């Protein structure tokens, strides 16, 4: 079998790999060049994102790794949606690399980050189960090592939780993939083969089961309820930049993977019977995540735990438009996850700027009393990120993202789910406004001293805020990316 290759489309995933190899080679040749690894890593990530840019503006199909016609299937799709998610994942990883800080980032950190980024860039583009499964694990497994790498006992505990979760998730994904191949007789995720399988009742049941199992496996990675239990423990125990990675780039990769799985379903939407089991599974995930995540976040006083529960809630919001199973829903999920990733990164960067690299204790809400007054830069960025997450103007992009997310659901006729989303949105406002209220209060007596080495964190927070402000003024820049 010959594959038609177009290397340009593969570059977003290949450049980080190349950078990873280069880092290892340089480290073997010149182990004393400490700055080399982060610089090469940053170039690899930035370069990968740059090569994905043409996909954002390009029209026409961007398919590659195609088998010969007439039975031709393409295993790699570099369309606008894919490219957007690739750019988001790569740049989010770059931001995390900056948060780790260029002086502290060792070779291991850089290599693991690059591996995870290349996995993320590949999984969102893959269209066959083999590539999908391998690259998805490539995107997530290095993160476990990153959590455990730092020398804290709690971090090891967090890593163990994540490892256990990942094993269960991997098992489910393999099972789901096997069921899919059995059901459709086709290892690629295409609408045609699904539609063919859908006509036979037995195959239909098998495929539905396969998808539900795959969705459950992915729900672990997206930290959607009821597969979320690892999230608060791991995020609060691990190093802050890795928590930021889990909440941004990993989330983008997982959502991208879910979008790939759900894409074929558009071809069976109009059929009778429709894909009710899949919709029911998605609705359960979104409703449970939105409500449980928000209610739990309401009770937290430790900020990273609050952000962890908020990431659970936001996972529900990302899945919300996907319940419609339409192209508009997939685009909406991509827009929402990008907005969330940027806002989440800004929040994590601001938290790091406030507490510094050694953040174990006193990450309490009270440490933020009057931050806007004491520290306008970090405080302002954090305030903006919170408003975007809450979906309140002046964080207009957060509000637009919510509109984008609810719209496909309403037009698919699932308006009761939309009404649940209303409740979640309001509770979410309570969560973020609670923190916002602390920020704009009067500075307390015992405010922690301002950290010294925090240029990188402030830089990330500022760049992220600039993106949020720009997107708030011109939401089309972001909303238009994926169409």
């Amino acid at each position, binding site marked *: 079998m010959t594959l038609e290759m177009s290397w340009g489309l593969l570059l977003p995933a290949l450049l980080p790999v190349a950078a990873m190899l280069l880092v290892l080679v340089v480290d073997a040749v010149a182990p004393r060049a400490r700055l080399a690894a982060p610089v090469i890593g940053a170039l690899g990530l930035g370069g990968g994102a740059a090569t994905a840019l043409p996909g954002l503006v390009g029209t026409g199909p961007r398919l590659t790794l195609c088998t010969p016609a007439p039975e031709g299937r393409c295993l790699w799709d570099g369309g606008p949606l894919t490219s957007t998610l690739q750019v988001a994942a790569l740049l989010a990883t770059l931001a995390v690399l900056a948060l780790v800080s260029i002086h502290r980032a060792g070779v291991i950190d850089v290599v693991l980050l690059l591996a995870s980024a290349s996995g993320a860039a590949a999984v969102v583009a893959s269209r066959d189960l083999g590539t999908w499964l391998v690259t998805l694990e490539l995107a997530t497994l290095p993160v476990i090592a990153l959590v455990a790498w730092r020398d804290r006992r709690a971090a090891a505990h967090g890593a163990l939780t994540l490892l256990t979760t990942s094993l269960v998730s991997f098992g489910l994904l393999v099972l789901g993939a096997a069921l899919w191949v059995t059901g459709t007789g086709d290892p690629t995720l295409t609408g045609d083969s699904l539609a063919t399988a859908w006509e036979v009742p037995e195959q239909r049941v098998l495929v539905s089961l396969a998808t539900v199992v795959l969705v459950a496996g992915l729900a672990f990675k997206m930290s959607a309820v009821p597969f979320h239990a690892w999230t608060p423990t791991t995020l609060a125990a691990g190093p802050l930049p890795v928590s930021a990675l889990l909440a941004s780039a990993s989330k983008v990769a997982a959502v991208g993977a879910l979008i790939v799985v759900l894409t074929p379903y558009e071809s069976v939407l109009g059929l009778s019977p429709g894909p009710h089991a899949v919709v029911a599974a998605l609705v359960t995930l979104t409703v449970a995540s939105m409500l449980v995540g928000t209610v739990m976040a309401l009770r937290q006083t430790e900020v990273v735990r609050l952000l962890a529960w908020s990431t659970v809630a936001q996972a529900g919001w990302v899945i919300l438009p996907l319940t419609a199973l339409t192209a508009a829903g997939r685009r909406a999920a991509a827009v929402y996850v990008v907005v969330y990733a940027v806002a989440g990164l800004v929040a994590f960067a601001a938290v790091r700027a406030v507490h510094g690299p050694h953040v174990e204790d006193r990450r309490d809400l009270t440490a933020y009393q009057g931050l806007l007054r004491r520290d306008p830069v970090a405080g302002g960025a954090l305030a903006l990120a919170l408003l975007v997450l809450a979906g309140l*103007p002046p964080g207009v992009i957060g509000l*637009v993202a919510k509109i984008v997310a*609810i719209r496909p659901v309403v037009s698919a006729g699932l308006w009761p789910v939309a009404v649940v989303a209303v*409740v979640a*949105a309001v509770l979410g406002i309570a969560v973020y406004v609670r923190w916002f209220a602390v920020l704009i209060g*009067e500075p307390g007596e015992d405010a922690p001293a301002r950290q010294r080495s925090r240029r990188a964190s402030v830089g990330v927070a500022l760049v992220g805020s600039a993106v949020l402000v720009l997107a708030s003024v011109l939401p089309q820049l972001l*909303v238009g990316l994926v169409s």
Partner: protein
Amino acid sequence: MALILMLLVPGAVGLWLVTGGRGLDAHTARVVALVAATVGGLAAVVAAAMRPVVDRAWIPDLGVRWHFAIDGISAPLVVLTAVIGVLVVAHAWVEQPWTDTHLGLPRGSAATYLGALLLVETGALAAFAARDAVLFFIAFEVVLVPMWVLISRYGDPKSAAARADASARFILYTAVGSTLMLVGILLLVGQAGTADLDALPAAAGALGQGPQTLIAVLLTLGLAVKVPVFPLHTWLPAAHTTAPTAGSVLLAAVLLKLGTYGLVRLPLANVPDGFARIAPGLAIAGVVGILWGGLICLVERDLKRLIAFSSVAHMGFVVLGLASGSATGLQAALIGNIAHGVISALLFVIVGGLKHRWGSVDLAVVRPALREVSPRLGFALILGLAAGLGLPGLAGFWGEFLALVAAWEPAHHEGVLRTCAVIAAVGAALAAAYALRVARIVWVGDAVPDAATDDPVAGALDRIDTRTPDTRGVELAVLAVLVAAVVTIGVVPHTVLSVTAAAAEALVGGGR
């Protein structure tokens, strides 16, 4: 051009004041804010007269356009917002919430306070001028955070817990309402295929009874929180009691109007059949609000809360007018809206001033008669109360009178609405009773002495400090503008009615 100025100047200056300009000293900040409010206000008045149109693509993928224009229904509200916007900023010379030091705590900067006022004004103007349903929703949300800041940071200095409670209630109730409204708007826009408010009525006319009713229920429920309609009003008294005077004025005169305006603009204009179906429920809720508000006003001790509950009663009349479904009812709602905006602004300025002077406005505390110690303030209070009870010749009369007329001859559901009209008339009598109660206690100074023993400490303190300086300077000017508006609308209601008439006819006639 005027439209852009009207939104851009207060918006940009407001944003700058809450971010970069926070360090500005109080005096400069006030001047800057006043200039911005005046320029924005003048632009708004010009825009209301010239009716320009701004229409640009904003988010093409969502079909959302940057589409602003003013028509007969929004013009009076835009002018009202512009005037109130200038008045509340000017009021910063009278009352300075940022210097109220209770327990020695400083409270935020003057610039943030003024910036928040300007941002609320911008959001309201944008919402009134928006000609795109989704844009309307976004503008509707713009006012949330600044208003929340006004209540939670600059509200009643005595109790931080009360501020937190009132501000949280405000933002959460309003968010429930607006997000429900969003679902309704998305459903409407999705089914009709356009978000343009000009094209929507025609496009939505083809919808069946089921979808129309569902959309109308979602939109009406959402907006009813903002109005507020009876069982959903519980956020309002807390917010009014706690907010600084300027915040209360903005809340009553501008934000509540967003709710009624939205009811006219979205369910009434676009899904008239669905709205007519739920109209009896709305009318009953409105009438219950009239009675409930009136009865509470008869016993309420806190004067600010009392005015807030009277707002609930007045909005009951507006809702009743809307529910009648006739052009008269719509006219009644629109003029009642404007009248309530002016009257409640007047009353809140007075009561806020009294609270500032006395420390509290507990009616059970014996105080000297207002007519003796400060006759000008007393006169304004009496005028405001008289307008509030619907005395002919003042602003409040037309809204109530026309609402009753419309409810007596409704377009549908005659039995329910006639009954509602009768009960509402009884409610109007209640308004007279509580207005006289307030006048007797505050103006005549005829408080029941033994009630003061409930709170001996506060009573004693207040008795010692019995000086009530009369109004003068900026406060007098603010009051004079509002009094003039109350009288003008009362004597020549035609100024408002003629502007809204054509648009109202088109709305009610066009939907059928």
